[in-house]
Each structure stands twice: as structure tokens, then as C-alpha cells.
């Protein structure tokens, strides 16, 4: 199903929740809404589902205007972050419920429920009540209910956020496979850039109720159109700084300078902005050398995350190995100028 948001806004009282947004999702694939909490992911989903009516603008599916159409009349399924199942129904009845409402025959319901229960490894739990299941199994039940309906639009609102690490990875690997054959358009909300990259498909980066950019997930990651998009799509936060170009050199304050990159070669002298991903900022190796002062160093597994004050900005280096530093320590860090992204004064990417 194709779904299009056309000049949609949503205000609750006087407070804008979604600023004017136009977005056409990729039909039959994974569409990821990436943004921090309160960026409007859930609200956008609720608008698509019809649970919320836009203040202005329209929502079109398959070319027809469905703004204001009753939720019951749409082909939509939704899975929430907080494991929503019908508490008084068994797992079987939970999965069967959309089919029962649709008026399918007993035989057909039975067959479908068992097929999806199998797929989601719920067959041994079919007679249990949701509260007798683990969190992962509860969410699988909710997913099975969304799948069995065969809805054209499936909305997954941070479905893995409340699961523990192991289960999350397991289910994340399964998700794209589950929806592969259904032909459904899947919308998946997440706060984690890494999750978006793993799921692939298309991504819309969101910030404070605005869609910043929409496109192929990998290309948004590699070439974010704006600084905001780059910031949303980076965890730990992306490193930014103002640089000035003069002649064939760019200067980062007084701490570093390097040869003018191809992106800026044709442009006039002046101030530009640079962004650099934390894993491109290293403690050794060649490239541009920067002097900084350690703020804090954290170890996460086999990686170290070091926050460094560089010319008034706090930069983050995500680097292999375990390194310990003390606060205030002087440090030299390096990056390859080829990994930098350059933005103009309006924070739009300067692309070749």
C-alpha cells in the first residue's frame, strides 16, 4: 500500500505537535522513523493509523483521501512499545481476534493462527494468558496479531525498546524476514541509529515534530542532507565545528588545519561547518592532528568513548581498545579529512 502525508500538521490546543509535513512512504518495504523521544515518531504513526486526525492536510492511501476515515475501516495494524495484548484472551484468542472480527470461518482462523504462531515460536503457549508469558513472548503475540490480519500498513512503534538486549537482537533479525512476503508497508519507529542501519530500507529522520529528510537508509547515513539529519542519525552524537576556508587551507580555530577538500574547492573563502562521526576520530593513525583536553572517558565493551574539548566544542571519539584518561589531560587525536562532511552556512550538505 502506498501512503502519503500531504501538508499534514497537528496541533493539540495551541501547541504544534507536527509541523507541516509531506511524506510519501516506500510501499511494500521497511520505512524507519528515526528520532529522539518527543520528535513526533509516535504522533506520525497515529496520524497514519487514523487514531489522530490531522489539524490540516490530508492522508492518502493508494491515491484516495482517507483523512477522517474510521480506524476500523482501514487496513492497518499496530504494535506498541508496551506489549499490548487482550489480558482476558488466551494467546490463541489474541491472535485470532482480528480474524474473528473480520468474520472468517473457524477452519481458516485455526489454520492461520497456527501458521503465525509457528512462525513466531508461540505454538507451545497458545493456551496461556498474556500475563503468563515473558516480555519477548508477549511482544511476539502482539506481532503475530498484527501479521495475521494481513494489513497493508503495519506500524511498529519501538517494538523492541522494552525487551532485553538478547531478545531485541533476535527479534530484530527476524522482523524483516517476517514481513518480507506479506507485501505490507512497514513503518518502524526507533530512537537508535544503529537499529535503523540494521533494518535497512528507507528512513525518515525526525526532529522536534519535523521530518528532516527521507530516503534510503544507507544513503541518509552516508550523505545526510542537513546537519540536523546527521545529528539525528548518529549515536554517540556527531562532532561538529565551524571551520574557515582561506586559500588552499581550512582552519579549525587554532587547533587544526588541513588542505581544502574537493567539496569546498570551488567555493569562496569564509566560514563553513564540518561534521565528523565519532568512530572516525581516533587516538592514533595519521591524518589531521587535533589538540584537545579530555573531559571524560567511558569504556563500553571493547570500545572507549572519550569526550574531548576541542576549540570550545565537545567532541566524542569512539575508538577500539580500552583507554583510560583523567579529566583535563591533554590529548592528540587524529582523523582522516576524507571522512569529513561539509555543510554551508545554512547547514545544508555540500555535495559533489
Amino acid at each position, binding site marked *: 500500500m502506498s501512503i502519503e502525508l500531504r501538508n499534514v500538521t497537528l496541533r493539540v490546543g495551541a501547541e504544534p505537535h507536527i509541523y507541516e509535513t509531506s511524506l510519501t512512504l516506500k510501499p511494500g518495504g521497511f520505512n524507519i522513523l528515526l528520532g529522539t523521544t518527543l520528535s513526533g515518531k509516535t504522533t506520525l504513526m497515529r496520524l497514519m493509523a487514523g487514531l489522530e486526525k490531522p489539524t490540516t492536510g490530508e492522508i492518502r492511501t493508494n491515491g484516495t483521501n482517507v483523512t477522517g476515515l474510521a480506524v476500523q475501516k482501514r487496513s492497518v495494524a499496530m504494535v506498541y512499545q508496551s506489549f499490548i495484548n*487482550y489480558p*482476558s*484472551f488466551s494467546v490463541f484468542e489474541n491472535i485470532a481476534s482480528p480474524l474473528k472480527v473480520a468474520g472468517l470461518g473457524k477452519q481458516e482462523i485455526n489454520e492461520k493462527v497456527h501458521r503465525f504462531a509457528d512462525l513466531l515460536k508461540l505454538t507451545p503457549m497458545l493456551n496461556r494468558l498474556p500475563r503468563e508469558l515473558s516480555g519477548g513472548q508477549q511482544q511476539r503475540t502482539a506481532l503475530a496479531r498484527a501479521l495475521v490480519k494481513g494489513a497493508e500498513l503495519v506500524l511498529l512503534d519501538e517494538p523492541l525498546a522494552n525487551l532485553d538486549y538478547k531478545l531485541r537482537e533476535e527479534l530484530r533479525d527476524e522482523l524483516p524476514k517476517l514481513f518480507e512476503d506479506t507485501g505490507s508497508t512497514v513503518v518502524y519507529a526507533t530512537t537508535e541509529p544503529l537499529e535503523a542501519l540494521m533494518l535497512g530500507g528507507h528512513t525518515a529522520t525526525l526532529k522536534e515534530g519535523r521530518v528532516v529528510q527521507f530516503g534510503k537508509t544507507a544513503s541518509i547515513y552516508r550523505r545526510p542532507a542537513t546537519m540536523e539529519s546527521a545529528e539525528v542519525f548518529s549515536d554517540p552524537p556527531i562532532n561538529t565545528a565551524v571551520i574557515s576556508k582561506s586559500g588552499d587551507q581550512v582552519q579549525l580555530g587554532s587547533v587544526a588545519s588541513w588542505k581544502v577538500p574537493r567539496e569546498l574547492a570551488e567555493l569562496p573563502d569564509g566560514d563553513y561547518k564540518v561534521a565528523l562521526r565519532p568512530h572516525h576520530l581516533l587516538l592514533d593513525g595519521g591524518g589531521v592532528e587535533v589538540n584537545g583536553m579530555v573531559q571524560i572517558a567511558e569504556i563500553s565493551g571493547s570500545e572507549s568513548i572519550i569526550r574531548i574539548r576541542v576549540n570550545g566544542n565537545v567532541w566524542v571519539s569512539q575508538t577500539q581498545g580500552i583507554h583510560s584518561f583523567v579529566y583535563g589531560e591533554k590529548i592528540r587525536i587524529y582523523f582522516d579529512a576524507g571522512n569529513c562532511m561539509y555543510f554551508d552556512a545554512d547547514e545544508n550538505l555540500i555535495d559533489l
Partner: protein
Amino acid sequence: MTRSKKWIVPTLYILFLMLPIYGLLSMSFKTTNEILGGFSFFPQEFTLDNYIVIFTDPTWYMGYVNSIIYVVINTLLSVTVALPAAYAFSRYRFLGDKHLFFWLLTNRMAPPAVFALPFFQLYSAINLFDTHIAVALAHCLFNIPLAVWILEGFMSGVPKELDETAFLDGYSFWRFFIRIFIPTIAAGIGVTMFFCFMYSWVELLLAKTLTSVEAKPIAATMTRTASSSGYELGLLAAAGSLTIVPGAIVIYFVRNYIAKGFALGRV
């Protein structure tokens, strides 16, 4: 205190609590003469006569029947009306919702005596005086606000996403409400019914004012007997003991839910 002595405090506590009930029960097995004669811990001449009178004399047992009829009508009426109201308060924001909710509660704060006279006049005017439905309706004034208040707490404990999931699954509102929502808050409905039942069961003033013969409640029968034919204390004790029974039965069924109601801070 050593481990083996731990039973002492709860035992004393329970004994202390049970003492008045024991007093009533033991009186109900005595003759009135024995009760008036002096204090005895056990009945000297054990008799079931008091209970036999109650179960054979219609003026007595119809009191129980009348009470049970209007209490059941009232409980069902209150819960039926309060369910949609509580749903609205828990799920929707509308102009003045909080004030309306508070206003409902203020009905519970007014003493029944305030309403007794106007109610008497009103129910007489519409020919409902001395009917079960009259008392059941009058008690709604106190029980519906109570039921809305308790149910709203239970309903607000159910995430709104459950409703939305059901609508997305294709459920119409009423099908969702009856098939999914009501079973989900069954515990809350049990607790609510208990409180409505108990209030209506013990309320005397309105029940007495609005009835004379046909729908006379047991409590009214008890007061009138005490004044007309001398002090039939044995009979009154037996009647009193029997009034505890319905409440005890209802408590037995909802005992597990009451704790849940307390946890929600609404009971």
C-alpha cells in the same frame, strides 16, 4: 519475641474483633428472658426459636427479601450506569470534566437526611412510594458516584493502547467494550459491586422513608418490632446476625480484589 509466640498478637486481635459478633450470636440463641435476666457468656437454654420465627413469619423474612431485591436492583443499576460514565472520565478530556467528576463525588458527601423529605414527596407523586425500585433509585444517588469513582481508577490503569489496538483490529466500540474491556476490569467491577451492595444494604433512613409495607427493608422491620411488642431481644439478635450473612458472602467472593482496589487508592 520468640518465633513460637508470634501467634499471640494476631489471636488477641481477632478475639477482640470477634467479641461483639460473638455477643450478638450467643444472644440470638437465648430466650429474651435469659438476656434480660443477666449476663452469661454461653446460652443457658440453647434455643433456635428466634430463627424459626424469622424463617416462618412473613413480616420477618419478607424484610430480607425486600432488602435483597432493592439492593440487587440498585447494584446492577449503579454499575451499568457507572461503566460508560467512568469510561468517559478515564478516556476523554472534555470541558469541565474534572469539575463534573468532583461534583459527582459531592453527592456522596451530602447526608441522606437532606434528601429524605423531597424524595418522599417526589416518589409519592409519581406512585413509586413503597416499591423496591424507589429505594433502588434513591440509593443510586450515592452509589453511582461511588461506582464511577472506583471504576475510573481501575479503567485508568488499563492503557489506552488496548482500546486503540482493538479498534485497529476492527472491533466496534461496543463490541470492544463488552468483549474485551469489561473482562479486563472484572476485578474492579467486583469491588464496585461490593461497595454498592454494602452501602445499599446498610442504608436505613431513605429505605425506611420510602417504604411502608410492600417493600419494607429488614432494618426497618427490626426497629419497629423493638418498639411495638416490648423488647424481643432474642429475636432482634437473630435478625441482626442474619443481616451479616449477605455481606459476608459478597466479601468472600471479592476478597482478593479488594486489596487491588486499595492499591489503586480508590477504595
